[in-house]
């Protein structure tokens, strides 16, 4: 379990994340939603020890992320940020192989090779193994990075806006894939996501943030209410039920 205790991050006296306490489950999908500037990405980066908090603590299976050795944590928790370097000319299999670095230390064993092959197959990248990343479409490249994170074989996977730059088809496919990964491999996947409807359909748990604070934590049904959404996003969102899912309409 990931426990977040009174986590705060301030830049020049402005609190980007303000006294957040949360716990993230051992398995399943948690979606972090909220308007721009709510502190979602900062929170995710602090959980993954990419940013040091101003105060507070994050414990991953009891290990304080600020105190624990990077290499130890890298076997339990993986994060994929947005804006990945697309100019790097690595092949898909080279990139995915780097996901094994915490385990292999750069000298992949047969076991590492198996994880690499599995991750590549799982994301349907078999035919693209030897292609360079800069020769792929945005969706294929995103899948390659997710494959790398899966090859890292950690219980906890944090993804910062994995649907960015994906079109409708690929965004839905990515969410289905994450759902399948969480179910099949019993992983705990936490995603920062902009589209509340993807959160509504695919997430087991929703965390809504606004102005650096957590305003709601619970099941997606609790989030998908007109009054709640209006409060979080400060705009009118109509909620309709379609085939058993609650969807928010903010286009009107």
């Amino acid at each position, binding site marked *: 379990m990931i426990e977040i205790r009174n986590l705060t991050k301030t830049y020049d006296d402005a609190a980007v994340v303000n006294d957040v306490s949360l716990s993230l489950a051992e398995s399943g999908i948690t979606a972090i939603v909220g308007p721009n500037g709510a502190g979602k990405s900062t929170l995710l980066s602090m959980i993954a020890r990419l940013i040091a908090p101003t105060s507070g603590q994050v414990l991953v299976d009891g290990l304080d992320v600020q105190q624990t050795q990077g290499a130890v944590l890298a076997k339990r928790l993986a994060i994929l940020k947005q804006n*990945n370097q697309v100019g790097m*000319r690595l092949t898909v299999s080279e990139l995915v192989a780097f996901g094994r670095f915490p385990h292999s230390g750069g000298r992949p064993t047969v076991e590492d090779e198996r994880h690499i092959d599995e991750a590549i197959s799982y994301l349907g990248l078999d035919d693209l*193994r030897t292609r360079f990343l800069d020769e792929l479409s945005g969706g294929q490249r995103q899948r390659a990075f997710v494959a790398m994170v899966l090859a890292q074989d950690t219980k906890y996977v944090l993804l910062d806006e994995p649907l960015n730059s994906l079109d409708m088809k690929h965004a839905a496919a990515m969410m289905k894939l994450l759902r399948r990964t969480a179910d099949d491999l019993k992983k705990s996947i936490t995603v920062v996501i902009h589209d509340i409807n993807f959160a509504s359909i695919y997430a087991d748990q929703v965390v809504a943030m606004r102005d650096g604070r957590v305003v709601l934590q619970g099941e997606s049904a609790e989030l998908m209410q007109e009054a709640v959404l209006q409060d979080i996003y400060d705009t009118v969102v109509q909620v309709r039920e379609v085939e058993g899912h609650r969807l928010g309409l903010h286009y009107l």
Partner: protein
Amino acid sequence: MQAAASMPVRSRPTAGLLLAVGIVLVLAVVSLFIGVADMPLRDLVSSGGDAQALQLLLVSRVPRTLALVLSGMSMGVAALIMQMLFRNRFVEPTTTGTVEAASLGLLAVALLAPGLPVFSKMLVASAFALAATFVFLRLVSRIPASSSLVVPLLGLMFGGVINAVTTFFAYRYDLLQSLAAWTNGDFSSVLRGRYELLWIAGGLAILSYIAADRFTVAGLGESFTRNLGLNYGRILAFGLVIVSMVSASAVVTAGTVPFLGLIVANVVSMTVGDNLRRALPWVAVSGAGFLLACDIVGRTLRFPYEIPVGTVAGVLGSGIFLYLLLRRRARFG
């Protein structure tokens, strides 16, 4: 089946690399036998040997060829490492103020402590280069990530500012000629006893291979590196020390060759990619080959006179550099 699928990727470059090493060896041999003084092969191999020919070979020709090979490979490797650490295709020691700072360091030694042994001079120059490169790195981190072409432009300006300071003091103390010799690569004066520091540069280039994977990971970004449990700061420090020492040893001995590393690193990236475990040997070999070729051209074009290798490489290099810039722009547009 899975092993078979990944086999071709790994075995193909090895054969190519061996071929490239062969070409460099041929160039090196050619380089040994170009020169004003006659050095017939039979004199070298005949029993007893012609003392004069052997002397010439050992004191002048071999050191020059070795210096070219060591400089070429280390400048290529330094440029590639820099491109990973800056995450920018257009940086190398001569476009980031690194070389200019090493010259400033060397000038400071020449003015303040002229008696220092050459190795200590190199260390001082390295320290200056390291400081300037670090300052430039901080500067670059403040520019929006989108403007990749702004980085080398800023670097050239940064180098220009350092160079202005150096030129001012060199002018005041009548050292302008030495200054020109430090930065503009010229291997015609390389003799035994005057190039050996380049072995350090060559050694560092080879040493950097042990951190090849780490440099590649660093090229994927700081977050990416920390996610894999690696210490980004330590990789950065190791890389910058290598780059600074390579630049300084070039400045102290034969001088640097502008654009050499940048071009070699870009061409290698286009062909074998950016996985440094694969690319570093290629960059080292191509850097040595390119420099040897430029030197041979410079020595034969208006034989028996010489055109400095820096000039030849600069003309060829800036042409290729422009082509790379325009090609990249076209691809984005």
